[in-house]
């Protein structure tokens, strides 16, 4: 499945939240999400295609996601395979036994609104200004979401978070193992 989403950086979360509420969007989540990213560190193909496995604790749900960045300049540039798992600890151990390595532990706060079939995620990442992620099942709907909020499509960003850190904010995270609100090392 392709991930159809666009980021808008440095938004005012309060203003966006108010606008979404006024549009009738429903606030469905406000949680700290903990991610663990695993990679085949010695596999150059993984590095080249930005392949990674993410284990996510999202409220009461645990998920495994495989991501591969195909093209960061377009919407839907990331292939994403995602399913729920019942035991995050066991899954983590299995990945390690299969030869993957823990690349990074990261956390973020997500405030999610839903309007029809469009997801609006206000995201708060350590060391970054708040950003908005708009996600839906088609580019037209993502564009529609941006338009509803009066956002200029020219400002849409399609990078993954690593590139946002490194290329936009000039914060290298390649060797950062813990990227949380209280630790950056």
């Amino acid at each position: 499945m392709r991930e159809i989403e666009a980021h808008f950086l440095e938004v005012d979360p309060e203003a966006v939240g108010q606008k979404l509420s006024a549009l009738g969007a429903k606030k469905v989540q406000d949680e700290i999400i903990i991610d663990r990213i695993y990679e085949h560190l010695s596999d150059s193909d993984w590095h080249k295609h930005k392949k990674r496995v993410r284990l996510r604790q999202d409220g009461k749900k645990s998920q495994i996601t495989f991501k591969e960045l195909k093209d960061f300049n377009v919407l839907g540039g990331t292939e994403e395979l995602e399913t729920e798992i019942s035991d995050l600890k066991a899954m983590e151990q299995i990945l390690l036994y299969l030869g993957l390595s823990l690349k990074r532990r990261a956390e973020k706060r997500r405030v999610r609104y839903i309007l029809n079939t469009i997801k609006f995620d206000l995201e708060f990442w350590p060391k970054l200004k708040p950003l908005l992620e708009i996600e839906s099942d088609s580019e037209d709907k993502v564009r529609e979401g941006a338009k509803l909020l009066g956002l200029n499509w020219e400002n849409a960003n399609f990078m993954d978070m690593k590139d946002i850190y490194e290329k936009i904010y000039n914060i290298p995270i390649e060797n950062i193992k813990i990227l949380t609100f209280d630790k950056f090392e």
Partner: protein
Amino acid sequence: MKDKEIEIKIKIDDRDALTKKVEALGGIFKERGNEMDVLYDDGKGFYDAHKVLRLRKADKTNVLTYKEKLPKSTSFNLLERMELQTEVGDYQIMDDIIKHLGFVPYRIKEKKYEDYLLDGLKVEFHTVAFLGDFIEIETEDINKLKIVLGKLGLNLEQGINRDYGTLFSEYCEQHNLPKDTPCTFEAEQRSLPH
């Protein structure tokens, strides 16, 4: 998450008689069903090293399991392994993820099972395609296991310390079947002389 599995597997000839024995001894029927397993290999010696990566489709759940022999496993009659498992929401997506991790399906294996609880131990009857009927009892208490086996007219020495995948590989070799023969009831049916 369970990290250690000790089990005994014994080939049985008269499953009905043994089932009746379990029931007569107060065994409580728990469930029966079918399981379809896919075992994966990385083509770099993963499977040959007796490591198991298995995605199981059962009647109600999908389960991903990793197993490997314990380094100190010395028993000829018990299968002692480290086991990690988690339920998985979407079978097809997990299969795709595993393939992206560099693994390919190596063996398909089908099994019918019937589970009982006897003296606090999980007693399972398995019918595996091509291989026939087995009783499997999982425990960490070997003395308790010996007592239950004794009540059933079985003993520790009858235990087979190989998994079904290995047993089926041996079966294929003995019967000149191609290595990639699916261990399914359909394939078994097809292989019977007309």
